[in-house]
Every structure is written in C-alpha cells, then in structure tokens.
C-alpha cells in the first residue's frame, strides 16, 4: 500500500465505519438499536485497532500527503489510544439510557475520534487546525446531547463558546507563525524560532492557549467543571481522556518539532502552568460536593502532573507523558463509567449519594476503589507508575521545586480520593437499606469496566510492554 | 550417670522448671497430685544437690562441675555455671528449704497449681544466681527470682489489711508489700544493670573469672571512657553495693522487708527469709569483694556501721513488735546484720586469718539463719493457721496445750538466739572473733546488740508459751490442736541440722573455710 494510504489507514477505516453506521441505522428495529449500535461500534472500533496493528504499523518516521501528516510512532500510538478509548466509551454508551439507541451519538463519537487521530499525526498548521475542529465540534454536540436537560444544553453551549474563543486564539497564533516563518510545515519551522524573543514567546503563548484549552490547563480550564458536570457522563469520560490526550499529542509535536530551541522558555512556562493546574485543581476539588465536578478538577490536576513530564524535556520525560496518558485514560474511563452507572440508577451525582455504595454493589465499589487509588497514585495501579515516572523525569532534569509541588499536590489528592472511598465503603445509606437497592448494570458495561479495571492493574504491574509502547511513540523526537 | 556428672549443675538448676511443666499439665482439681508432684520434684532436686555435695572436692580452688554453653554471642555472654564451696552451701540451703516450704504449703487450697508452679520457678531463679559464673546469667536469674515472689505475696499473702499509697489510694496490705518489694529490688537492679552494661562495654566479656582478673588488674591511674579509673570503679562499686544492700537488706534499705515478710504466705516467708536475703549477701561475697577489693576496704567502715545499725536497731525493733511475724521479720534484719558485719570486717584486711574467720562466720551465718528463719516463720505459720492471729498479746501460756509445738519453738528460738550447742552460736562467734581485731568498736556495739537479740526472742517465747494460760484457746471451737505430723516433718530436718552444726560444725565449716581461703 502506498505511504499515504497507510498513514491514514485508521482514519479511513473509521470513516467507513461511521458512514456504514449512518446508512444501516434506519434499517434496524427500534428495540434492537441499542444492542446493534453498541456492539457494532465497539466491535468495529476494536476491529479497527486490530487491523491497524496488523497492516498499518509504522516502522520509522515518514511524511505523508505532502507534509500534512506524519506516519510515525507518536501518531500511531496515540491513534490506538483514542480508538481504544472510543471503543470502551461505546460500550459505556450502551448503558446510558438516553444515548444508547441514538446512532448519532455513536457517529459523533467516531467522528471525533477521526479528528483526534488527525490531530496526533498533523504536521501542518492548517491540517492541525482542521483536525482540532473536527475533534471539537462533535464533542460540542455530544456534550449538549441531552436536549431536555438544562445542564447538558448549558454544557454544550459553554463548551462551544469557549472552544470557539480558544480556537480563534489558536488560529491567530498559527497565522502569526505563518507570517514569521513563511511556511505552514512544522518541520520547516524549527529553525525560525530561536532563543528568547518576545514575539516568539507571544506566539508560543497563543498556541499554548489553544492547546491548554484542550488539555484543560489552568487558566484555560473554566469550561471543564461545568461541561463535565452537564454532559452525559460517558461523554465526559471520553472528553477527559481522549480529548486531553489528543491535546498532549499536539503539544508534544509542536514543542519538539517546531520550538525545540526555545526549550528553556517553554519549559518554564509549562512548569508554571503545571504548578497552577495541579494546585488549583487539587485545592478546588477539595471543596466539591458533586462527583463529576470533583473528577473534573481532578483531571485538571492530572493534566498538570502529565505536563511535568513534558517540562523535563528528556527521553524519560516524554516516555513518562505517554505512559501517564495511557494509565490515566484507563483510570478516568473507569471512574466516569462507574459514575455514569450510578447516576443512571440513583439519579444523583452528589458525593453523599455514594454513601454505602460498596454494599449496594461490591464489585462496583471495588472498581471505584481501584480507579480512585490509581488516581491518587497508589500501587499496584497504573497511576503510581505514571506519577513516579513523571517525577523521576523532572528530577533527572533538576526540577526539584516542581516535583516538590507535585508531591504536595499528590497528598492533597490522596485526601479527597480517600474521602470519596470513605463514603463508598464506610458510610451507610439512610436506613441502611443497601441490600434492597443494588446497582444494576448491563453486560457491555461490565465488559468495558472490567477491561478498564484490569487494564489499570496490568499497567501498574506489568509495565514493560507499555513503557516499550511509550518509547516507540517518542523515538526520534528529541 | 555420665550425663549427670557432666550436666549436674544444669540438671539441678532446671529440674524445678521441669517439675513445674509436669505440674502444669496436671488437671487443676487434682490438688493432691499437684502438691505431691511439686514436693517430689523439689525433693529430687535436693537429692541431686546432696550427690553434688558428696562429689565435691573442697580442697580444690576455683569452680567445679563447670558447664559452658553458647548463649548470647552478640554480647559475648555464655551460659556458664560452676560451683565452689560458697555456692555449694547456698545451693544445699535452697534445695533443702524448697521441699520443706512446699510441704509447709500443703495448707494452701486456692489455685494450688499456679502456686506450686511459681514456687518451682522461684527455686530455679534462686539456684541460677548461686550457680552463675557469667555476669549476665547472674543478672538474668536475679531478676527472674523477683516475679514469682511478687505473685506469691500478692495473690496468696495475708488477705486482710489495707495500706495507703500516695494520693489516698488504698490497696490491700499484700499488694502494698509485694509492690514495695518489687519496686525496691528493681530500683537496685537498675543500678546493677547499668553497671553490668558498663562492664560489658569495657571488656566485651561477662565471664566472672575473666572479669575478676581483668577488672582488678586495671591500672588505677589510667582513664576509662574519659573518666579516671578510680572514679569509674567507685561508681560501679556503689551501683553493685546498693543493689545487693537492698536485698540483704542493709539498714536503711530494709523497710521493704517487714512488710514483705509479714504479708507473704508462710512458705513464701520461709523462702524469702531463708534464701532470698542470702542472694544479697552472696552478691557481696561473689561480686563486690572480689571485683572491688580497694573500694571495699575503703568503704568497709561505712558498711560495718550500717551492719551494726542493722543489728542494734533490728533487735530493738523486734523487741517492740506485737505481731509475732513482724518480730521474726525484724530478727532477720538483726541476723543478716551479722553477715554484713563479717563481710565488712573481712573487707578491711582481705586475706588475713581474721578476715577469713570473719568470712567463715558470715557464710555460716547465712546458712544458719536460713535454717532458723525458715523454721521460725514456719512455726509462726503453724500457730497462725490455728488461731488466725499473730498478735502476741492474744496468746499466753500455750505451752501446756501444745507441748510439742512449744518444745520445737523453744529449740528453734534458741538456735536463733545463739545458744551454744546450736548452730547460731557457732556462726555468731566466728563473726565476732573475726571482726573484733579488725573493727573493734563496731563489733563491740554488735555484741551489745546480741544482748537485745536474746531479749526479743525470749520475749516472744514468753508471750506465746509462758505466763497465764489464755482461756480462749483452751476450750471449745478455738481449742488449740497440737502440731501435726506433716508440720513436724517440715521442722525435723531443720532442727537436726541446727543441732548437728551446733555440735559438730566441721562438716560444713570445712568446706566453707577452704572456699573462703581460696577466694580471698
């Protein structure tokens, strides 16, 4: 197959998948929709992964489509990550009452995934912008999907506005880059942005605004809590993981390829952003009473942690970022899935509604335990390894103060994660009627959650293959 | 047999523990079996020690029947036991008194199993001190002996009476007594422990033979750990002295004794007075004098002063008692004073003939007092069991009612008093003979004390046996019963020995003399 084809092999398959979905959907009977849609999407997405692994694995780093996209490890690994997240999310969609039989939901999911895949491989400014929009617009719609729910509409709308604003800023930055460098190819820009130069810094900052929005970095995070809270929970899960990872992919490429010589500057800039993200994310999370908002602020904090690896700007640092995103994706998907199921049964997302959850459904409680402990960075879960690697990279590059901030923040994190677990395990429901109020979940949900939970443990214990994956992704970037 | 010959000391030492284990697995309600097993076991231990006596060669200096096993290498302490004339005497005393005390305890009905087990553990503890040839082993057994005695007093002691602690807390007398006993002894032990640790740090070895040699051969003008050797030696000397002085007990550290002796059960008092007090004196002889000859000589005057005070005040105090048991308790203070006097006198001029005579007297007094004190306490117990009072005023003219008991009481009292022909005289004479040339003034005062010894003993006898008959005990339900066979059997060996040593002291004295001459 030609290089160009291989480079967009996953995207092509996804496109076919999506179109087929749209075409076949009207022919399915209403009651079968949920099952068909769900398994079709999930199965299809898993199939895409497998087929891509077999046919379209890159061996080196090559440019395709005239320099628009890159066919390399970074792109490939991230694509697989997104598709995997989408697959799990479609399984979780099957459990969400108002999404499960709407073909549009699954389609939007797939569409957004296509966008993300392109984001990960884009090496041209225009391509990058297109990819970002392709990702974002379906997500705006998905966030506001529940038309009769005020919160959801508000979420969608807010996301749209914020996204538009930052998109514009980003575009402005891109245009400035083009203006200064005369090219839209990332590869070619490397030399233009040399050492400290207020203009370069300004341009960089504008780009960071755009990407920072996607990653939900402070101070571009304001949309996150409201959107996560308002959007359908499984959508929030997907947003917090895949979308964020996509942002990171873009950031890595930009910084490593277009701005390598300004490393000293963007390292400090990112370090500051990471610090305020971690700190603000954790501190505000402490005050939350709604679990979705808590998880939102928690993801803001985690974005900060992951960023620390990038600040380190060394091999271990880049590897640790990728590893972090893998572990984090599994963890957050699991966490949001549980919240989704629980919200569906009880109709509440308040923290105190979770009192006695472990007695209502011991295995769900256990999954929550695993997910939250991974979030707080405890072994034997992926979150622990991820945090250690990120901090190790920072130490290697001498960022002791940053690591110190990270440590303090981790401890704050431990506090509120354990508090949630306390509600789940220690506290009882009113009247202690847990046994009469179990949490029923569907089979696909169980499958998805099991994969995610087992994944968290596997990533935390047998980490050589995943680290290898990270190395594969970051090969040749520095 | 060969095993026995090579392991005789450890056999004697641990046989009581073995007996205790057997007692442990007996059912709690088989009281008779428990009693007789305990008695039998302790009797066998006594037989072993007689065997030891017969195979002991008094002419050899140093330890015999030595055994040494790896024990605690990290601190260079081995399980090293050995016997010489001094410790042999004490071992015989211990293994003799224990079965008698157990026999005396046949009247105990409450938790007999625990009582007997504690008693047997106590025996091992005491034997261990006498047999130890390693300082750590000495200390281990010294401390181990405390615990059973604490519980014996606490649990089986006199249930009546109340004492007040600080802050108005009231506890029963026996609690008070056992606590005081424990606290006093442990306070002394603390100093001892620190001193032993210091020795360990300096020499990395706890073997008594080794230590005696090295410690005494240290250059007196040198420094140890930054302080002058002389100062260190003095501090360590006093640490040892205080620990042992508390045990003997030396006036003014004696105040635990009257309470402990009085509140303890009869057999407990027998062992307490009979053996435990000797542990302190033994410590002086085995450790203080050999390790600190200069300091002993230097402070001998102080020791003799305290000893004399013990003799005199002990006698006065005994005279003033109305409680029979307390009288006997103070008599222990009085008699042990002689032991200490002999040791102190000997310390002033170690190695001379006078010193050796004084030491002979001291050791023999240890043995004799063991016998007579045990006997006296037992006899008090006998009358108490029948009358449930120890108040001398409650008795009176009992001799016609219980003539056999009366006879035995008089006999034992005379031995305690030091009547020539009985053992007490021999030892007291030797002490006085040996001490007089060395410390004439103190000895003179002590002899005056002897006068009062006679006074209180005679008072005791008079109050109990002579005078107008107290009708209360003559008729009805309070009618006094005569001393029974078991009780006579308890007293018989003691009396026999008292007589034997009184008439023919050489048997025992020869061994002691040779040991003292060899040691000093």
């Amino acid at each position, binding site marked *: 197959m030609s290089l160009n084809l291989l480079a967009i092999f996953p995207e092509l398959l996804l496109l076919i998948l999506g179109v087929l979905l749209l075409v076949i959907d009207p022919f399915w009977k209403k009651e079968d929709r949920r099952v068909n849609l769900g398994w079709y999407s999930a199965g299809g997405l898993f199939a895409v992964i497998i087929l891509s692994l077999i046919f379209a694995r890159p061996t080196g780093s090559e440019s395709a489509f005239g320099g628009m996209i890159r066919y390399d490890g970074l792109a490939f690994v991230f694509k697989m990550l997104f598709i995997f997240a989408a697959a799990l999310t479609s399984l979780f969609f099957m459990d969400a009452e108002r999404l499960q039989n709407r073909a549009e939901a699954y389609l939007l999911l797939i569409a957004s995934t296509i966008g993300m895949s392109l984001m990960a491989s884009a090496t041209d400014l225009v391509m990058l912008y297109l990819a970002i929009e392709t990702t974002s617009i379906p997500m705006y719609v998905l966030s506001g999907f529940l038309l009769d729910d005020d919160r959801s509409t508000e979420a969608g709308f807010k996301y749209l506005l914020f996204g538009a604003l930052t998109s514009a800023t980003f575009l402005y930055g891109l245009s400035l880059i083009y203006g200064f460098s005369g090219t839209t190819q990332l590869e070619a820009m490397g030399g233009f942005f040399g050492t400290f130069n207020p203009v370069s810094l300004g341009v960089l900052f504008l780009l960071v605004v755009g990407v920072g929005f996607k990653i939900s970095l402070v101070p571009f995070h304001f949309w996150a809590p409201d959107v996560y809270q308002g959007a359908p929970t499984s959508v929030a899960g997907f947003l917090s993981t895949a979308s964020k990872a996509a942002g990171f992919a873009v950031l890595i490429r930009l910084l490593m390829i277009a701005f390598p010589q300004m490393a000293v500057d963007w390292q400090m800039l990112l370090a500051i952003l990471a610090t305020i993200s971690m700190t603000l994310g954790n501190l505000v999370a402490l005050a939350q009473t709604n679990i979705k908002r808590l998880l939102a602020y928690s993801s803001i904090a985690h974005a900060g942690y992951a960023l620390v690896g990038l600040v380190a700007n060394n091999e271990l640092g880049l590897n640790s970022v990728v590893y972090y995103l893998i572990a984090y994706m599994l963890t957050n998907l699991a966490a949001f899935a549980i919240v989704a199921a629980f919200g569906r049964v009880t109709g509440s997302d308040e923290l105190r509604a979770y009192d006695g959850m472990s007695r209502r459904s011991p295995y769900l409680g256990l999954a929550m335990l695993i997910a939250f402990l991974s979030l707080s960075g405890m072994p034997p879960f992926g979150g622990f390894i991820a945090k250690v690697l990120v901090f190790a990279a920072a130490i290697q590059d001498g960022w002791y103060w940053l690591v110190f901030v990270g440590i303090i923040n981790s401890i704050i994190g431990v506090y509120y994660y354990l508090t949630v677990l306390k509600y789940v395990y220690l506290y009882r429901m009113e009247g202690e009627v847990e046994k009469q109020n179990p949490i029923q979940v569907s089979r696909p949900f169980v499958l998805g959650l099991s994969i995610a939970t087992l994944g968290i443990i596997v990533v935390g214990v047998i980490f050589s293959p995943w680290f290898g994956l990270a190395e594969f992704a970051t090969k040749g970037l520095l | 047999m060969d095993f026995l010959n090579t392991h005789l000391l450890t056999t004697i030492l641990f046989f009581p523990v073995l007996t205790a284990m057997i007692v442990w697995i007996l059912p709690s309600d088989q009281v008779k079996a428990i009693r007789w097993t305990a008695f039998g076991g302790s009797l066998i231990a006594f037989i072993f020690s007689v065997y030891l006596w017969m195979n002991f060669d008094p002419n050899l200096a140093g330890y015999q029947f030595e055994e040494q096993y790896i024990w605690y*290498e990290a601190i260079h302490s081995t399980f090293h036991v050995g016997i010489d004339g001094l410790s042999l005497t004490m071992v015989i005393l211990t293994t003799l008194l224990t079965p008698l005390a157990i026999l005396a305890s046949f009247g105990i009905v409450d938790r007999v199993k625990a009582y007997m087990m504690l008693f047997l553990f106590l025996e091992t503890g005491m034997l261990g001190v006498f047999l130890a040839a390693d300082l750590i082993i000495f200390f281990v057994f010294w401390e181990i002996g405390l615990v059973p005695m604490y519980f014996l007093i606490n649990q089986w002691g006199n249930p009546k009476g109340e004492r007040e602690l600080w802050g108005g807390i009231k506890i029963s007398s026996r609690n008070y007594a056992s606590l005081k006993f424990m606290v006093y002894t442990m306070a002394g032990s*603390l100093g001892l422990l620190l001193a032993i640790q210091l020795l360990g740090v300096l020499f990395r070895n706890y073997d008594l033979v080794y230590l005696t040699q090295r410690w005494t051969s240290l250059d007196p003008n040198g420094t140890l750990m930054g302080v002058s050797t002389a100062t260190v030696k003095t501090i360590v000397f006093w640490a040892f002295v205080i620990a042992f002085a508390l045990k003997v007990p030396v006036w003014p550290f004696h105040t635990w004794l009257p309470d402990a002796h009085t509140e303890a059960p009869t057999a407990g008092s027998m062992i307490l007075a009979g053996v435990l007090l000797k542990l302190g004196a033994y410590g002086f002889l085995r450790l203080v004098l050999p390790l600190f000859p200069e300091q002993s000589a230097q402070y001998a005057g102080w020791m003799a002063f305290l000893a004399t005070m013990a003799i005199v005040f002990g006698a006065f105090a005994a005279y003033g008692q109305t409680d029979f048991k307390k009288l006997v308790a103070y008599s222990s203070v009085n008699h042990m004073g002689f032991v200490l006097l002999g040791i102190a006198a000997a310390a002033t001029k170690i190695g001379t003939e006078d010193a050796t005579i004084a030491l002979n007297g001291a050791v023999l007094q240890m043995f004799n007092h063991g016998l007579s004190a045990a006997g006296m306490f037992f006899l008090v117990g006998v009358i108490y069991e029948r009358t449930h009072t120890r108040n001398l005023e409650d008795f009176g003219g009992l001799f016609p009612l219980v003539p056999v008991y009366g006879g035995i009481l008089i006999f034992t009292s005379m031995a305690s008093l030091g009547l020539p022909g009985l053992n007490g005289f021999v030892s007291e004479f030797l002490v006085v003979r040996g001490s007089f040339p060395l410390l004439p003034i103190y000895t003179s005062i002590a002899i005056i004390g002897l006068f009062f010894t006679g006074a209180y003993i005679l008072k005791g006898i008079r109050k109990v046996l002579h005078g107008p008959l107290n009708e209360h005990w003559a008729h009805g339900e309070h009618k006094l019963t005569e001393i029974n066979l078991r009780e006579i059997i308890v007293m018989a060996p003691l009396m026999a020995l008292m007589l034997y040593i009184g008439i023919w002291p050489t048997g025992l004295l020869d061994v002691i003399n040779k040991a003292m001459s060899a040691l000093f």
Partner: protein
Amino acid sequence: MQFPVISIIVFAPLVAAIIMLLMKEEAKNEIRVVALTTAVFDLILSAWVYFQVYMNPTMEYQFVEKVDWLPALGISYHVGVDGISTPLVLLTGIVMFTGVLISWGIDDRPREFFAFMFLLAGGVFGVFVSLDLFLLFFFYEIAVFPMYLLISIWGWKVTREYAAMKLTLYLFLGSVFALVGALAMYFTNYQLNGVLTFDMLEIEKAGFSAQFQYIWFLPVFFGFAILGGIFPFHNWSPDGHVAAPTAVSMFHAGVLMKLGAFAALRVGIMLLPEGAKQWAWLVFGFAMVNVVYGAFIAFIQKDMKYVIGFSSVSHMGLVALGFSTLTADGITGASLQMFSHGIMTALFFAATGMVYDRAHTRQIPELGGMVKYLPWVAITFIIGALVSMGMPGFSGFVAEFPIFMGVWQVSPIAAIIASISIVITAAYILLVVRKVFYGEVPEHFEGHITPISILDKIALATLVIFMVALGTMPFLMVPMVQEGVNNVLRILGGA
C-alpha cells in the same frame, strides 16, 4: 533457579485476597477458612526460610530471585533475605496468623476485611525482601493504603475517620519524600557510573559524594522513619493504633512500624552511610525523646490502647536509638527489638481487644478484676508486661541489652537517661495490669464477660512462646542477626 519461596510468601496473600474477593459475600466461614489456610501456609514457609537461614547464617543475601521488570529503566524484581530481614519475615508470618485468629469474629463484610488485610500483608512481606529500590517503594505504598480502609471501615467509631486519614497522609508524605531521595540516588548513580539501575546492591557501590549523602540522608531516613514512629513525626501513631480494629493494630504496631525502621536502615543507612554518620547525632537525639517522652506520656493515659500506643512509640524509639549508635551492639539490639517488640505489641493489642470486645470500654478507671473471667488474657498480658520492662528471661531483655551497650559507647549519660524509661515503663504497665486485671470487678461486668475462644488462646499462646523462646535461647536468632549486622558494618566502615 531454586524454588521461588520468597515470591510465594509475598504473593500468597495477594492471590488469596483476589480469591476471597471473588467469593460470595455470604460465604463468611469459607472466607475465614481461606484466610486462615493462607496465613498458616505463609507462616510455615516463613518459618522454613528462617530455619534455613538459621542453619547457615551468612553476610550475603539468601533465597535471591531476580527477574527483569523494566530493563529500560533498570527496574528489576529482585528479592532476597539476610540476617536482619529473615526474623522480620517470620514476624510478619506470625502476626498474620495470629491476626486472622483474632479477627475470626468480625462479622461485617469479612471478605473485604481479610482481602484488605492480606493486601497489607503482601505489601509488608514485599518490602522486607526487596532488593530493588523501585520494588521496595512499590510494596511500601501497597502496605500503606489498605490501612486507610481497614481503620476507617472497621475501626473505633469515635476517631476512625480522623485517625485513618491522618495516618495515610502522614505515611504517604513520608514515603514520597523518601522516594524523591531514592530517585536522586538513581539518577546520580547514573551520572557517576553510567548505569540506570534501581538495584540496591548496585547502588550500594555507587560511590556517592559525601556532600550528596549528607543532603539526601535526611529526607530518605526520616521519610521512612516516620512510619517507624520517630519523634517529632510520631503523631499519627497513637491515634492510628487506637482507632484501628484489633488485628489491624497488631499489624500496625507489630509489623508496619518495623517496615519504616527497616526501610530507614536498608535505604537510609546502607545506601547513604556517610550521611548516616553525619546525622547520627540527630537521630540519636530524637530517638532519646521517643524513648523517654513516649514512656512518660504512656504513663498518664487513661485509655488502655493509648497506653500501648505510646508504649510502642517509646519502644520503637529504642530501635531508632540502636540504629543511630552505628555500632554492632546497637544495630544488633535494634534488629532484635524489632522482632521482640513486634510480638509483644501484637500480644498487647490482642489482649486489649479481647477485653474491649467484652467490657465495651478501654478506660482503665472503669475496668478491673478481669483475671477472674479472662485468666489467659491476664497471664499473657503480664508476660507481655515483663517483656516490655526488659525483664531478663524474655525477649525484651535480649533486645534491649545490646541497644544499651551501643548507647554506652556513644554517651554514658544518655544510657543512664534512657534507663529511666525502663522504670517508667515498668510503672505504667504494672499499673495497667493491676487496675485492669486485678482488683475489684465493677458490678456491671458480672456475668457479662464471656471467656475467650480456643482460637484466641492459640493466638496468645503462639505469641508468648516466641517471647519466651527468644528470651531464654537467644542463640536461636542472634547469630543470623549478627551476620546481617556485619554486612551493615562493612558498608559503614568501608564507605
């Protein structure tokens, strides 16, 4: 490769935890049986390992297993035991076994209880046998978070949430500081020797500069010593002890605190010897405060469990004290004390738990005369008290004596001051014994105190046997500990 005994010991509890979690919640008795079987199995294995090391004590590590884990970063699964860790492995086995016996009566979700407890046990075993720094931290954290769940869910209602959170945050903080230090060592070793490795045996030979060691010794040592209860970071310990359910307290004081001290030795002293020598005086000073202050505070407590909690602070101070002397005697004594105190405090908490379960109060003034109904508890508690006082013939004396010898070599005055604690210890523990077990039985207890079960008796007897055995026959443990200590001295002397 020889049979991987150590790995089996470490993973058996973890596997058992997973199995139990998959069992039905209602199958409570089956769950208990699974737990007990695993505990017995692990005890036998650890005893076997102990026996093997006892027969052949050496300075090297034995039962070594090494498998690559993440070669790119030099992380390997590297385990082994030496003379110091073998007794601790045995200790964990003993406490696990007795802990299961004591917890037999837990009726509220025993499945989760035993699962979390075994997770804890697995983590603890793992730390003791780790020879790879990363692996050590991995297991160390695994040993920390189950404590939160165990205390907050099954603990004493009044303070459990507060105590659990405080404990977890404190320990996590400490471990993270130590982790940073470990990472610093990892990267500096790379700079010095060009090899990326977390292997502790390699890092031992790294040749860090004295300056580096001076700086990093503090976070590493104190980071771990926090778990060992060193002043001034001991504050989590008494509350944690009191709030935890009985078996968890046994684990906490009996084993977990040893984890901290042990890791402080393994990582702090053995990998940063120059730092150890530089800062020994500081550790010594803090440890002295632990020993004396801990004893005084224990004296004034009214709650039985607080007495024992502060007693643990005091006795663990002796461990730190022994380590800080950097002498053969001191470190030997400290290692023995870890074992002796572990058994003793497990016994204390077991006994206290038995009293509390029946009397429903732990306030000393409200208790009394328990010997009448609970003679076994009384007698074993008394034996524990004797161990606590350092009475010869028991393990406490065997452990404390060399520590004091070590202290003498550093400062005779300090030895005398520290010995005050022995007196205070005797005072408070005898007071507890007298008031709780002897004296008058308060009326409302008459007839309400049920006797203890056969399982409880087995647990108590097991613990007593070890205390007496070590006390009367120190040669059963001392030679292997000495070899381990020789290894430590080699590092200290050579560096």
